[in-house]
């Protein structure tokens, strides 16, 4: 039994060691297959339920009490607006924080305290951020009064801004920003830490400032990994329903957003509501909406992977 494997230089190759090796391989394979199996079962059942409801009208009409007439236009546009705004807000702030902590700040009690908090915040359930969002952004702590106490522009103008923000696209984006910031910061820090010290030292030795070193050497080297963190964060933001519900996001709305103060709804909220309805027709359009959400996620991830492949150059 143990005759066939040993090669030159191999120490005592007992059949036990080889069997253990094989068993480990089988266990890993089984774990992988199980995950794939569960995922494909889920996808197939959603495809079966939702495929027939997926057509152009479904993407291009508003909600309805009749499942065959209902569509996700409001939710789709709402999700895109919210996630795009959230990304614009969260990415610079997240990478900025990571750069400060890794490249500028001296290790002190304060930075360790900040670090500890960021790590802990990534474990806070998102509904808690929803409550913060309701108080801080929807109502601005009640400092300015209720509905539209102060505003610039009219509701039709693209730069319309009002205080307090109310349950608007901006409120949702700011709240989701809080949800995803810890993810972006921690991932960016890991990425910066993985850049070899010799690169920075080389740059500094040539007389570059800290900023020049970061901008020309460290960040480009770290960017593929940072981007992975950003993808994870956006994927999380697009799937959140609970904080949106808490900040007062609408479910039924017959308009798409036109500015940051617009009322909105998002896909997860629409899916959650349809899946809980008594009529079977709503369950199949919920499945169709899930398919749209999955495609949206794939598009985001695909774009990010493409950008990453272009950025990824071997370290020189």
């Amino acid at each position: 039994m143990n005759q066939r494997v040993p090669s030159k230089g191999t120490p005592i190759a007992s059949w036990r060691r080889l069997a253990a090796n094989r068993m480990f391989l089988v266990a890993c394979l089984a774990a992988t297959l199980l995950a794939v199996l569960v995922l494909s079962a889920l996808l197939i059942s959603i495809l079966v339920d939702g495929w027939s409801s997926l057509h152009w009208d479904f993407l291009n009409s508003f909600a309805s009490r009749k499942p065959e007439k209902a569509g996700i236009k409001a939710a789709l546009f709402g999700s895109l607006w919210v996630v795009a705004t959230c990304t614009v807000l969260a990415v610079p702030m997240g990478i900025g924080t990571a750069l400060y902590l890794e490249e500028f700040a001296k290790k002190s009690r304060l930075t360790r305290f900040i670090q500890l908090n960021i790590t802990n915040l990534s474990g806070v359930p998102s509904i808690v951020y929803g409550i913060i969002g309701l108080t801080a952004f929807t109502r601005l702590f009640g400092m300015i009064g209720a509905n539209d106490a102060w505003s610039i522009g009219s509701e039709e103008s693209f730069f319309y801004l009002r205080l307090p923000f109310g349950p608007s696209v901006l409120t949702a984006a700011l709240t989701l920003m809080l949800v995803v910031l810890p993810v972006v910061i921690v991932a960016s820090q890991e990425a910066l830490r993985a850049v070899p010290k010799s690169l920075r030292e080389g740059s500094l030795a040539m007389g570059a400032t800290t900023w020049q070193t970061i901008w020309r050497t460290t960040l480009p080297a770290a960017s593929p990994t940072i981007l992975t963190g950003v993808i994870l964060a956006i994927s999380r933001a697009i799937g959140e329903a609970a904080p949106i519900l808490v900040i007062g996001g609408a479910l039924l709305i017959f308009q798409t957003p036109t500015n940051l103060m617009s009322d909105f709804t998002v896909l997860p909220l629409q899916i959650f509501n349809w899946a809980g309805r008594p009529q079977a027709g709503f369950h199949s359009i919920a499945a169709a909406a899930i398919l749209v959400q999955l495609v949206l996620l794939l598009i985001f991830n695909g774009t990010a992977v493409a950008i990453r492949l272009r950025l990824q150059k071997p370290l020189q």
Partner: protein
Amino acid sequence: MKLAQVASSLIVGSLFVSASVFAQKSELKGPVRIDGSSTVFPITEAVAEEFLRTQPKVNVTVGVSGTGGGFKRFCAGETDIANASRPIKPSEMEIAKTTGIEFIELPIAYDGLTIGVNKENTWATDLTIADLKRIFSTENTAKTWKDLNAAWPAQPILVYSPGTDSGTFDYFKEVVMGKEGKARSDMSVSEDDNALVMGVSGNKYAIGFFGCAYYFENTDKLTAVKVNGIAPTANTIEDGSYAPFSRPLFVYVNSKSASNPQVKAFVDFYLANAATLSAEVGYVKFPAAIYGKVANNWTKGRLGTQFTTADGKSISTSFSKTYE
């Protein structure tokens, strides 16, 4: 019956269309902000959908923060209308008083609670409130069906219930075991009524309760338990014979918003179509007399609730008596 309903709704519909063509040339604009119960949501959704066919420029938004959450926003003056699956509480009225919000209370339809058992359950198809109390409460709990009746199987009763902080649960608990009663802790609880239906239809010895819409959609999978000999149907719920398990649903309108033309038009439309549209989405309409009372309250702008006295005590008479 069906034909008559269709015909009457057609007539009402065409009347409305002609009315809007001749009388209301002006198009309304502006927001109608609504938030509250997810149980009331399908009715408000249906009303909003039809309303926007006649007034496409009005911006109706409906949220689902739940009855409590909806009242919080309503009492802070953030919304024009609150959807509610129960009357406003004295504590919520206190807040409204401090913020200076006055409101008009408008009941709009019934939601009947259905107690469902498995299709194969041939014994427990007619139960009394006392039976239900023994099944669902901690007091003298019936662990097996045999505990209730010696002729029934000696199998444990599997209990399915909506989430204990939902309006449906609150209402059921108060009817079956009173304010002080305690529900047993070994129930299978789910916030998703579809999951309750699945649970009951999958276990021969199960029992559960949920909104009647969930039973009407699953009559092939479940048997509805008669309560004191009365089965839950649209008729028994409407005429009150299925009491006490038919609960009224409400909308509350901020009296200041009620003078906004778009809000006023929306509520007018709501009351005119509540009967047809609520039935269409799985709820049960009131008898015409109650709608008459409600419409009267609306046109007169009757402020406050009819379920709490001035000194903050709940009035315990049943809903149909209050609106008789």
